[in-house]
């Protein structure tokens, strides 16, 4: 099979993939939030291993896409950031899962 054709087969079906979620750091955040009701910023930092700056910027990107809501509060005069996946985020993540499932079917069909 010519190289171009192979490349085309590999990438076809991936064009429609949500790139906001597909980025590894954001996928790590979304897959954690997907199984939870809410989590704070420290939990996500511990679970994903992302630095605070990275985590903040990726959360801002997800918030801008409407996939998460970020709530800043104070507990004992210390800042606390709670993150929750929105219904829109849940739908988008389900769609992403379905796309990846289709794309990774064992028979190679996309």
């Amino acid at each position, binding site marked *: 099979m010519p190289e171009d054709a192979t490349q085309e087969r590999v990438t076809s079906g991936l064009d429609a993939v949500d790139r906001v979620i597909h980025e590894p750091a954001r996928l790590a955040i979304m897959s954690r939030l997907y199984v*939870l009701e*809410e*989590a704070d910023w*420290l939990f996500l930092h*511990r679970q994903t291993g992302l630095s605070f700056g990275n985590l903040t910027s990726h959360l801002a990107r997800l918030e801008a896409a409407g996939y998460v809501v970020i709530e800043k509060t104070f507990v004992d005069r210390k800042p*606390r950031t709670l993150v929750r996946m929105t219904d829109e985020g849940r739908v988008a993540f389900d769609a992403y899962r379905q796309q*990846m499932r289709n794309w990774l079917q064992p028979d190679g069909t996309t």
Partner: protein
Amino acid sequence: MTKKDGESPVESGVRRMEQRMLLYYTQDGLWDLCLGACVLAWGLGIWLDFVALHGAFCGAAVVLVWALKKVITYPRAGYARMREGGELQRRFRKALAIAVVLGLVVFLLGVVVFEGTAGVVATVLRAYFPVLFGAMVAILFSVIAAWVHQPRFYAYALLIFLAGVLHQWGGVELPLAVTVAGTAILACGTAVLLRFLGNNPRIDEGADA
């Protein structure tokens, strides 16, 4: 965790996340300490004749765990809450239902044994009460172990069962066997807690790592 046939990496990733969440709930060793304290109190209760207060003690221990989570766990590992109606919560409720049924069986077993009920069944239950009771508690611990995917909870179940067996057929005093089992669980819980504290120093939000 094994990957199911035909499951995509994203699917297995989501399942792995669920498992990691369960690990999160038990990584601090506080539930181990709670179980150990309840078992130890049970053993000491038989010894010192305050077993009637055991239920109240266990209730207080559970409340204490929730309080300690706020002081020990959340400032170190962060805070997360299970999704309402999610897979984790469904499994938690199933485990809780099994635990309640087992608790009722143990209670009825106790009533039959200690209320002087006549009959062959009551006589057999009375004769094998320690090992049956140990088996029930062991099953309860196994349900917890299966839910949280933590092999050490199976070891706790085995310890409790062994306490009953040693008393029944080994001639070991029941309070001694139960107290030893409780102390062993407490020691293991303490080790898990110390490891958790060592691996997870307190971090204030906003301070970059």
